[in-house]
């Protein structure tokens, strides 16, 4: 396959809290092994996003202080381009803090509400400093299989009618710990999730889903040759096993 893809990594220096880099390493490797040339551009504060230049866009999570600066920059320099890119089918993956900032707004435990970019019809509210964070291993059902990861967030995210959940929670908290939803999908190509761990390396089916979608749009090709995923599957199974142990324990 003689194909090439281009990925915009938004704020890799600021939004890199929980091994988010693993997602980029994963996309790079899975493309490379199939002869797909993946170019990654890092876009930091103040840098504009060319909505026509990219096939994939990724944004990770950060601490509160950094998140505030990113929120401002997103609205100031990248929001319009992000909307155009998503409308034109560019594949977007937003994890944790990035997912929150691409919703309609984020209301922190203290301080001013942060306006979001509004890619996802979703909003996030922090219930207050005394309320427990959602921390732990997560297993969710996605497209007839599972996704595994780790979540760590104080904010509770709720979806409006324009978005639909990415997955349903089997074990863990997900968006808000109440309605069993995890993450969000806006249209077919924008994905938001709380799962890190890193997410993509041990959820190779999801990684390939993103690559295939980007390829189809750019090159009208969807056939991805299979890779040796024995280790990936073992890590996935190991995470499932840990969650299962916890479920058995809770049932007792």
């Amino acid at each position, binding site marked *: 396959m003689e194909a090439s893809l281009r990925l915009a990594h938004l704020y890799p220096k600021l939004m*890199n809290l929980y091994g988010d880099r693993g997602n980029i390493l994963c996309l790079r490797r899975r493309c490379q092994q199939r002869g797909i040339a993946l170019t990654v551009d890092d876009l930091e504060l103040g840098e504009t996003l060319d909505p026509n230049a990219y096939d994939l866009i990724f944004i990770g999570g950060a601490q509160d202080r950094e998140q505030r600066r990113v929120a401002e920059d997103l609205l100031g320099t990248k929001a319009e381009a992000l909307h155009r890119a998503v409308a034109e089918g560019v594949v977007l993956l937003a994890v944790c803090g990035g997912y929150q900032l691409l919703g309609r707004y984020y209301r922190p435990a203290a301080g001013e509400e942060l306006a979001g970019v509004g890619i996802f019809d979703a909003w996030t509210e922090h219930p207050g400093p005394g309320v427990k964070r959602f921390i732990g291993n997560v297993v969710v059902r996605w497209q007839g299989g599972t996704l595994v990861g780790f979540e760590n967030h104080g904010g509770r995210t709720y979806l409006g009618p324009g978005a639909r959940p990415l997955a349903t929670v089997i074990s863990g908290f997900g968006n808000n710990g109440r309605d069993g939803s995890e993450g969000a999908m806006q249209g077919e190509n924008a994905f938001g999730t709380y799962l890190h761990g890193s997410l993509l390396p041990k959820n190779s089916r999801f990684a390939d889903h993103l690559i295939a979608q980007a390829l189809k749009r750019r090159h009208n090709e969807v056939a991805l040759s299979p890779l040796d995923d024995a280790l990936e599957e073992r890590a996935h199974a190991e995470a499932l096993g840990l969650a299962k142990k916890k479920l058995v324990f809770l049932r007792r």
Partner: protein
Amino acid sequence: MSAVSSLRTAAAVTTAKVTAVVSRRLGFGGGTALPGLVADAVSPGLAIRLAARLGHGSVLITGTNGKTTTARLVRNIAQAAGYWPVHNHSGSNLMRGLTACLVEATDARGQLPEPERRLGVFEVDEATLPEAAEALSPRIVAFTNLFRDQLDRYGEVDSVAAVWRQALATLPSSITVVLNADDPSVAGLADVCRGPVLFYAVNDASCAVYEIEHAADARWCPACGREYSYSAVFYGHVGHWVCPGCGRARPAADVQATRVKQGPDHLLRLALSTPSGELDLSLPLIGLYNAYNALAAVGVGLALGVPADAIRTGVASFTAAFGRQERMTVRGREVQTILAKNPAGLNQVLRAISAEEGTKNLLFLLNDDIADGRDISWIWDVDFEMLAGQATLVLASGRRAADMALRLKYADIGAHPVIEEDTESALEMALALTPEGERLYVIPTYTAMLRVRRLLARWGRRPPFWKED
């Protein structure tokens, strides 16, 4: 002290001492924390009363990485200077561990032998610092560095820094604070210190790396928000930094390493320039991060008023602590165990191993117990890639063995890492697969290290960790 409270102190000490013995006998562990909990239940505030008897007061050492090694070096320096240190050598560094350590130093009647010679040398958990500083009224507080570590447990790096600033702002102005000038998060603590500050730093540009690692955490000036600019980066965000926005910059250091050299003999050689003159030191450790630990310890020594000769003697008597690069021979293989529990620490360990000569046999153990941090995402922030193609044998073990193996596969360290979840079987396999006469590096997270140490103690006939000095 009133007769009643004195009696109560004695009762608490006795109960705690019995608890320690019972805990060890029953195989619960080293009895390095439980006695502290028990003693505090019998007599609340026991630590405060016991610490008040230390004739020379206490030194507290905190930070993300390097606490155990730094405290151990300070202990040796203090000994060489004639002090009789009370030191939480087991690494039990929460309040209960400090209490247990003070209890252990007293006799059955609750008396501290030779109190006039006593100096407390305590490594303290980052989040425990405010409580420890209040209870122990230290005369010196030293900080090593600040990196992301167990985010699910400590919260974000910013909140740890905020806790430290708050604690420092309330300390009396008689306290000396020893700070790492090269770590902007630590150097910045000087703003809130009310008393004297002593800075230490590395001043040998030949140790610099070319770019900032992925594990860097303090990249932006908290005052003006601009990104720091570096003329030299040593590791993580540690280096020669300056803010191009507001001009905040690395402060001039009182204690500097003007030359850092890793010898082929496993010795780290340092040339130090200090207010008490030049000091040449060598340590049986690898890695630049240990140069910083030595600098912090020398800084504490100088703040204590220890003469240069005694500092030299103290450092020369240093041996590595359990799990911190201690080397031992097991079944004809040299085994070196190096604890690594966060991205910055593991990067430093990998860099040090990578600089070593000879073939590399590696056993990584990744656990996700509470003491390790439940979240293992951090392994993706580690630059394992620097060891690509260097290892002849790679094993992954621990509760998250497969996650570790996958990360190693991505880094092309071992094409087919051996995966064995069980620690004992993995260690057995690693020893069997390491050719006789070669070195095996064992790199565990915290709880895995405790288990490795127990096994190696049995196989290599080392004393259990609570007995080791």
